[in-house]
């Protein structure tokens, strides 16, 4: 019949509030800690109080005798369980065996030594206190440069040089670059240890069913399928009999892109006791045992012409690995090398990465993972070079940007940047903030004795991980679209969003492609028994990779729906269009998408060569990373008396490709900026020389609070990525990567009149005050 088809408004590109929120704002969501099972037992873990120590003996008898304690296990009990997995590899990499409970020695404060299982968490905690360990502490080493020095204590006695690997990468001709250089600027730059601190700590519930030889594990993870594969291996179980559920996950930022000892340990306990068991990490444990981020000491040298033309960048990167390799530990600093050139067209890089063992919790991926460190390096060096040759920091960037006609752009590090117009983004930022006017204001402010700074960072990053050859565990992503007979749509994504909002943005994509209402689409994720194999959520990949997989699955559904529609309308396959939820022939006759779905399942009318049902699954492999970029500008003022930094303005202009939901993009950006400013200004994971984590609680580790954050002004330029059909790049890490160097550049600019040329992070008020003291003393001497 002829029908009037109403044109549907496109949902992609709209600020749509999230579908996942109702459960979260009413307190009815289910995080791991909320999981309840009959006869659930509770575990608590005894951890090493020492940075390095031998375990001479462990006496569990008092703990085991405590009423309510069901079992106590130590290192001797878990030898049948596989050790913690590191998926990254490098030539010659030294991989220490990381048992899920320590054997005869502990390597960092927090190292798991024994587990007490009890009827409730209170008794379990009491039991932990009753275990007696005869410790023999040995000298720890926590500073990676000290660990490399001759005579340093060996973290792993078998490797006295504390060196896990040395990785070299060269691009171009560095010797020539330095021979041609008219100016060389050198700087040691530290990217300090950071503690990811998602608001939900880790937690695990394991439930073994002997009769089925089946294990269900709830764990707060970003990678449910990879975690399942690894845990099945560690526990010696069939992968298809392990169901891993990442329920509501309260933030990760890379720290849950990992598989930790406690996950296999709870599986082991549940199998031993034939009961379900729960372990919830305390905040103190989270500080001490969940991976940390960054931990770089970078020695950088930039070679250039006096006109500002950059010729090359040399890097010696000392990576503080901690005591073990977690899932990706050794791979993270290699990402820094890849991003060394930033947005610039110079052709020569040379990098040496030295991975160093220390008596500390392992470092691994934390928001940005290697790229913030690299961006901080290049963006600081560019500013220092500009200062050295007396050039404006914006000007020097324009001079060295890859041009908009240079794409695809092959960088000195061997990457191929997908698309961009870097100058346009910086143009927009400078115009929005009135850069010229600001510089005039600064002259005035300086004349009045005020320390006003303007900091620019033009960052680039690689994200949308990624082509499989470039990733340790597959870089593709999967999506299934399941249309029910009623026409309701269920999307199952292999991504595992935990706050990023793909239940909404993926529903927007599906609703647009199928012409169904947003409410008709639900997005499922995070349960390996429901969702096809997937990779997970990290590296700003959900939309660029998972969204692309979804897009192609939706195209399959569209094709099949059109064939059913044509059959129902009695016309040839090619004679219909599917739009606005209707399949319409050239005469204007149409059937609805819902009618098609019903017919596809009723099975009476089946197009030739087709089959009943309306389900499609796609695994999509990207051909390249995606490369977002942007320009962040911070105006700051330093209090001359106290060294306190005030952010007067924060502007971010980002190019993250096409935008699915601007509301979510704003949220990602703001959160990223908060973590970047956290690193620049306050956060620091500090170990003392004995291996104690001094900043081991929220009393001492300064997380950004509402009163510490500036108002963030933001805007975009849009250069679609040609890598995926959505044209999306990624925004999860952009704010973190762009903000840190902008902040440091701003404060260095503020203090430039005092002769300050570099400041290491975090730029605490006390550090700035000391710097001003020292500078003014020098001034007086001079």
């Amino acid at each position, binding site marked *: 019949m002829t029908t009037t088809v109403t044109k549907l408004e496109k949902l992609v590109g709209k600020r749509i*509030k*999230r579908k*996942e*929120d*109702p*459960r*979260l*704002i*009413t*307190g*009815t*969501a*289910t*995080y791991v*800690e*909320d999981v309840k099972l009959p006869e659930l037992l509770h575990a608590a873990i005894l951890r090493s109080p020492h940075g390095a120590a031998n375990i001479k003996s462990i006496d569990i008898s008092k703990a085991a005798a405590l009423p309510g304690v069901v079992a106590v296990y130590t290192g001797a009990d878990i030898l049948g369980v596989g050790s913690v997995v590191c998926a990254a590899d490098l030539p010659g990499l030294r991989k220490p065996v990381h048992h899920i409970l320590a054997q005869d020695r502990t390597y960092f404060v927090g190292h798991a030594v024994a587990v007490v299982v009890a009827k409730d*968490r*209170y008794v379990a905690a009491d039991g932990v206190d009753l275990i007696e360990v005869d410790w023999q502490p040995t000298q720890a080493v926590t500073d990676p440069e000290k660990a490399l020095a001759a005579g340093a204590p060996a973290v792993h006695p078998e490797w006295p040089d504390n060196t896990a690997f040395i990785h070299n990468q060269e691009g171009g001709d560095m010797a020539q670059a330095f021979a041609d250089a008219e100016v060389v600027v050198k700087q040691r730059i530290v990217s300090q240890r950071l503690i990811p*601190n*998602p*608001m*939900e*700590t880790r937690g695990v519930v394991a439930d073994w069913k002997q009769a089925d030889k089946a294990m269900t594990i709830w764990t707060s993870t970003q990678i449910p399928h990879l975690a399942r594969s690894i845990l099945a291996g560690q526990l010696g179980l069939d992968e298809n009999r392990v169901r891993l559920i990442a329920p*509501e*996950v*309260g*933030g990760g*930022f890379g720290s849950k892109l990992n598989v930790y000892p406690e996950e296999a340990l709870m599986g082991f306990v549940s199998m031993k006791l034939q009961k379900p068991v729960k372990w919830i990490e*305390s*905040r*103190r444990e989270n500080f001490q045992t969940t991976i940390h981020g960054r931990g770089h000491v970078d020695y950088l040298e930039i070679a250039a012409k006096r006109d500002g033309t950059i010729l090359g960048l040399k890097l010696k990167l000392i990576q503080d690995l901690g005591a073990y390799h977690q899932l990706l530990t050794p791979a993270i600093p290699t990402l820094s090398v890849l991003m060394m050139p930033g947005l610039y067209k110079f052709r020569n890089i040379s990098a040496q990465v030295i991975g160093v063992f220390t008596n500390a919790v392992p470092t691994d991926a934390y928001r940005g993972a290697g790229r913030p460190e690299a961006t901080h390096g290049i963006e600081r060096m560019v500013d220092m070079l500009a200062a050295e040759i007396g050039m404006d920091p914006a000007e020097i960037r324009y001079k060295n940007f890859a041009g908009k006609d240079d794409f695809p752009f092959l960088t000195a590090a061997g990457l191929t940047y997908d698309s961009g117009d870097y100058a346009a983004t910086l143009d927009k930022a400078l115009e929005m903030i009135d850069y010229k006017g600001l510089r005039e204001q600064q002259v005035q402010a300086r004349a009045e004795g005020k320390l006003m700074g303007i900091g620019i960072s033009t960052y680039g990053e690689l994200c949308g991980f990624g082509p499989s050859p470039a990733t340790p565990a597959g870089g593709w992503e999967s999506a299934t679209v399941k249309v029910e007979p009623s026409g309701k749509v269920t999307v199952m994504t292999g991504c595992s969003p*935990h*706050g*990023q*909002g793909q239940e909404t943005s993926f529903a927007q994509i599906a609703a647009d492609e199928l012409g169904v209402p947003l409410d008709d689409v639900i997005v499922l994720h995070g349960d390996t028994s429901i969702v096809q194999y997937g990779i997970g959520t990290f590296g700003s990949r959900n939309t660029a990779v998972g969204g692309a997989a979804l897009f192609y699955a939706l195209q399959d559904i569209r094709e099949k729906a059109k064939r059913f529609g044509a059959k129902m309308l009695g016309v040839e396959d090619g004679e219909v269009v599917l739009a606005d939820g209707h399949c319409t022939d050239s005469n204007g006759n149409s059937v609805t998408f819902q009618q098609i779905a019903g017919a596809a399942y009723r099975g009476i009318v089946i197009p030739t060569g087709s089959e009943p049902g309306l389900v499609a699954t796609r695994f999509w492999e990207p051909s390249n990373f995606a490369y977002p970029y942007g320009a962040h500008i911070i105006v700051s003022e330093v209090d001359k008396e106290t060294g306190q930094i005030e952010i007067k303005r924060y502007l971010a202009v980002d190019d993250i490709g096409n935008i699915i939901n601007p*509301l*979510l993009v*704003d*949220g*990602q*950006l*703001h*959160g*990223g*900026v*908060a*973590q970047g400013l956290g690193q620049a200004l306050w956060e620091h994971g500090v170990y003392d020389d004995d291996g104690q984590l001094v900043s081991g*609680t*929220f*009393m001492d580790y300064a*997380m*950004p*609070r*509402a*009163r510490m*954050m500036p*108002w*963030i002004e933001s805007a975009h330029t849009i250069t679609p990525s040609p890598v995926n059909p959505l044209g999306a790049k990624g925004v999860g890490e952009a*704010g973190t990567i762009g903000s840190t160097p902008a902040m440091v550049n701003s404060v260095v600019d503020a203090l430039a009149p005092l002769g300050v040329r570099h400041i290491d992070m975090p730029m605490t008020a006390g550090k700035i005050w000391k710097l001003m003291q020292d500078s003014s003393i020098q001034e007086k001497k001079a």
Partner: protein
Amino acid sequence: MRTINVSVNGKQYSHEVEPRMLLIHYLREVIGLTGTHMGCETSLCGACTIEVDGKAVKSCTMFAVQADGAKILTVEGLAAPDGTLHPIQEAYWTEHALQCGFCTPGMIMITKQILERNPNPTEHEIREGLDGNLCRCTGYQHIVNAVRTAAKAGA
């Protein structure tokens, strides 16, 4: 063990508890209201914020026995019985003031107290008011917007 009597979200409860049981564990594990979250043990993250006798408190830093006789409100008690959201909940939703959602119940509960004491707060006053609550996802900007939106709605 001690017997305590409390009203939670308008319902009366009586239980025997160990004196050392934290109020948050009582709410989550004895009563079964898991909307209130434990984010730290040093009373610095605010994820566990609830209302006791009209005052926002951190339920991880209170023993259940200290709440004997008290009237408690948790995030689960905010929406109307028919499911109509509280204006603060609506505002958090509209403004995308949450991502992972873990801090959100505490944020919503402290917002209620902020607005009860200051129905029309400035940005600065909002940020000061949120000082006891950590969020690692949002950078707080959308939370500030949500508090403003809720204020406009007369929450």
